[in-house]
């Protein structure tokens, strides 16, 4: 029997507001334990939460960007459970009335466009972290992360393969980053994903029993874990067995999922509206303002790049894969208006360099201005394409502009025919055997002569002119 996977994803995105969702503590990552805390996020007796308006604005951006309906009235609720990283014994979240629902995002897999529904988006506070002492039976509680704002984005069970799941996640992350509300770093935990997976016989309407996968903390792992889980469930079903509804943890070392078999999953969260916070009322004017202020989103930008810069779709998609890369490209094009050449340099050379150095485009040692300056020198025949790569490497190393390097090293291309002619003559005079061989039919030796001329001129001679003069002299 052929089975069809049914997958829904729950994504937690940490919002990069300056301060926490219910107090004014900093949200900065990496501070010494328990230094970004106050009575409110420590859950001291008597404290009360006060909602950070910026969090609502960020959540609204995502809601509008994914075509959600924004709730005129939403509510915060308490999700009650005990854990040492949860100082109040409850997490303030949204339950019955989330801020937004009924949205969708479009993804493309193998050339086919697919719409993935967004069930809901809600705001909540993050919990702290436990650090388990490896040497003693002791755990340390760090509450810096407590109260950092999150949005949870719940998808419809519209995803049918690990590849679609990956594409959906990448699209969500890209939108979040375009909106500048989340840095989307899975390894640091600012972008987290749980997956609900079930199988059903192909053609069936009814969903099978699902499992929930946790601990998927990189894009690679999400796809691998879902792959594994599909195979696991399929094996059970093919043997006539039944999938157990449970939470399973992905172990990236063994590349398997394991049942949590833990009391933790038998939670009854006893949700109820948080009496410390008033219902959140969002008026239309605010939504309109967020809509108006929305930046260009990835899909729109890709389309624009295809049309405005006449780029192939693949190139446009590559350049718009992050807002920063697209900005870099556009900054180059403003100075040097040959989009395809810029694109080739960025995707062919710059990204390779950054990749090798483990840097992001924002950290690029070659600024957009400098890259455009280099390409300009090539197009103006000041610099040969051959030397350009070497100049680029030096730019990457020193941060200098191409013009600066060219001037310092005297790398300006020689296009003066008489100067080149003198060098050609010198090469011919010094290589009588090769001249005889060439004239005798060994035409491939032209490369040798060009090489010698280039050597003499330290690569500065214009190769077109060199070729022409050589052929004149050797009688091609």
């Amino acid at each position, binding site marked *: 029997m052929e089975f069809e996977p049914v997958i829904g994803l729950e994504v937690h995105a940490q919002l990069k507001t300056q301060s926490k969702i219910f107090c004014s503590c900093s949200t900065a990552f990496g501070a010494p334990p328990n230094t970004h805390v106050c009575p409110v996020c420590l859950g*001291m007796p*008597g404290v009360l939460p006060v909602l950070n308006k910026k969090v609502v604005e960020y959540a609204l951006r995502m809601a509008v960007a994914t075509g959600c309906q924004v709730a005129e009235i939403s509510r915060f609720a308490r999700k*009650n459970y005990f854990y040492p990283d949860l100082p109040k*014994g*409850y997490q303030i979240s949204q339950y019955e009335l989330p801020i937004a629902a009924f949205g969708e995002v479009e993804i493309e897999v193998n050339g086919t466009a697919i719409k993935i529904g967004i069930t809901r988006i809600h705001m909540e506070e993050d919990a702290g972290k436990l650090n388990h002492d490896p040497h003693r039976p002791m755990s340390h509680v760090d509450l810096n992360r407590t109260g950092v704002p999150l949005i949870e984005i719940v998808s419809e069970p519209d995803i049918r393969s690990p590849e679609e799941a990956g594409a959906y996640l990448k699209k969500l992350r890209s939108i979040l980053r375009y909106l500048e509300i989340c840095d989307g770093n899975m390894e640091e935990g600012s972008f987290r994903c749980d997956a609900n997976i079930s199988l059903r016989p192909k053609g069936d309407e009814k969903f099978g029993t699902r499992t929930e996968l946790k601990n998927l903390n990189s894009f690679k792992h999400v796809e691998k874990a879902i792959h594994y889980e599909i195979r696991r469930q399929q094996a059970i079903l093919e043997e006539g067995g039944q999938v157990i509804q449970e939470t399973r943890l992905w172990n990236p070392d063994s590349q398997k999922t394991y049942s949590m078999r833990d009391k933790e999953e038998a939670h009854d969260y006893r949700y109820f509206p948080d009496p410390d*916070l008033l219902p959140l009322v969002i008026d239309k004017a605010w939504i309109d303002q967020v809509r108006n202020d929305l930046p260009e989103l990835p899909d729109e930008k890709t389309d624009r790049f295809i049309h405005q810069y006449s780029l192939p779709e693949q190139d446009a998609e590559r350049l718009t894969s992050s807002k920063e890369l697209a900005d870099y490209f556009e900054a180059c094009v403003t100075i040097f208006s040959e989009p395809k050449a810029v694109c080739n340099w960025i995707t062919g050379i710059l990204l390779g360099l950054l990749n090798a150095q483990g840097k992001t485009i924002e950290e690029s040692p070659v600024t957009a201005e400098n890259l455009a300056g280099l390409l300009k020198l090539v197009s103006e025949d000041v610099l040969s394409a051959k030397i350009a790569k070497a100049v680029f490497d030096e730019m990457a190393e020193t941060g200098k502009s191409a013009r600066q390097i060219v001037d310092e090293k005297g790398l300006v291309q020689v296009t003066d025919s008489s100067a080149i002619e003198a060098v050609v003559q010198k090469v011919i005079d010094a290589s009588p055997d090769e001249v005889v061989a060439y004239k005798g039919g060994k035409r491939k030796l032209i490369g040798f002569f060009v090489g010698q001329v280039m050597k003499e001129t330290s690569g500065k001679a214009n190769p077109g002119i060199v070729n022409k003069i050589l052929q004149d002299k050797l009688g091609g």
Partner: protein
Amino acid sequence: MKRETKMKLYALTIHEAHDLLKSRQISSTELTRAVLDHIEKIDDKIGAYLSVFEENAMIQAREADHMIARNEIQPLTGIPLSIKDLICTKGLPTTCASKILENFIPPYDATVMSKLKNAGAVTLGKVNMDEFAMGSSTENSGMHITRNPWDITRIPGGSSGGSAASVAADMCIGSLGSDTGGSIRQPASHCSVVGMKPTYGRVSRYGLVAFASSLDQIGPLTKDVTDCALLMNVISGYDPHDSTSVPKDVPDFRRSLEKGLKGLKIGLPKEYYMTEGLDPDVSATIDNAANTMKDLGAEFVEVSLPHTKYAVAVYYVIAPCEASSNLARYDGVRYGFRDKDPKDLMQMYRSTKSKGFGPEVQRRIIIGTYALSAGYYDAYYGKASQVRTLMIEDFKNAFQKCDVLLSPVTPSPAFKIGEKTDDPLNMYLSDIFTLSANLAGVPGISIPCGFSKNNLPIGLQLMGSHFNEEMLIKVAYNFEQATMFHKKKPSL
């Protein structure tokens, strides 16, 4: 002040003390010393205080004297107050009368404490209460009981029993308590003092250790209505740290201290007078009070609060539900009591809570946890919230017909210590007249209105519409000035 006219300074009201401070006849240092000495002398008998901050109080008194010397006197400057022990005081113990917070010292001041400090008031110490404000007798204190100054074999009421007893026995000039279901008004009634529960949202709850967040409200317990107005002036107002406090201008409540009730319409909620078990002394005293009001020019109308019969049931769902969540944080991880050497995390939670919380608190946590559980939420919390909405409507309708509602505070005067401790349901039912004001969020005041045959105080409750504390103060003031029950003091 002159030796020959030396009076019992501790017996002063806020406004009397203020007049003497302002005219430099006494200093705050003298006043505070006198009250501290009085506490030292009689609190062994009463047990109102959980902690007395003698040194701190004297420092504050000296600072107040400096303020007065600079002519910066405000109505509360130099006035020594007692504070219910669930209002956070920075650097000073705040226990909620619970073992679980026995050693807890808050790192911050409640908003009301900041306001009192700015006004130059002196904090004498923290007073007893039912643990986490859960109770009506102060017998649920995890530390010790408090006795009623009028009869030390009886309870002072609760949960703000320490506040009421300290005011009645002159162990402070005024006090702050909190009221979740009657916890200010009922002890005020049992101890013959004035106690007001303001409108929900009038006074910031920031720093008030939460029992039931949607019902809790801080309020004053004082020796007369004028003092109530003075304290209300200072503690009221919107607080950006409390989203449920209401951004509304605060009137000067002193302006409500004016004579004349002509044309006032007083509503008598008929359901309150059909209650079984209303003590005949209470009934007769309330009738007398109504007659006094009539003599003062008020008219009476009968009104109906049809959902009153559900108040106890609704309250004992909503309050424990919220409490079960609010008290989850006392887990022994960060502060307060933690049981020694637990074998694992689960056992740490269990034994910390079992040993740290008293029986009534555990009872309510269990009730609330049960009522919020999956499958029960709609039937309990959901239904209770719906009835609560109807109760708010009841009050709105009633206030279309009248200016204030008049009722007893409690069905009977203070009972004997230990009399009801084995019967929690009976104890819950004695809150019948006070719960509705919390559920509806309206303000209520309890003022002395007479005594039973065996000389136990009886209080009168007035309830007003949302944010109309002025009306309550005005009516209470007229009644007080016409009857002067507040002048009668217990003999200790």
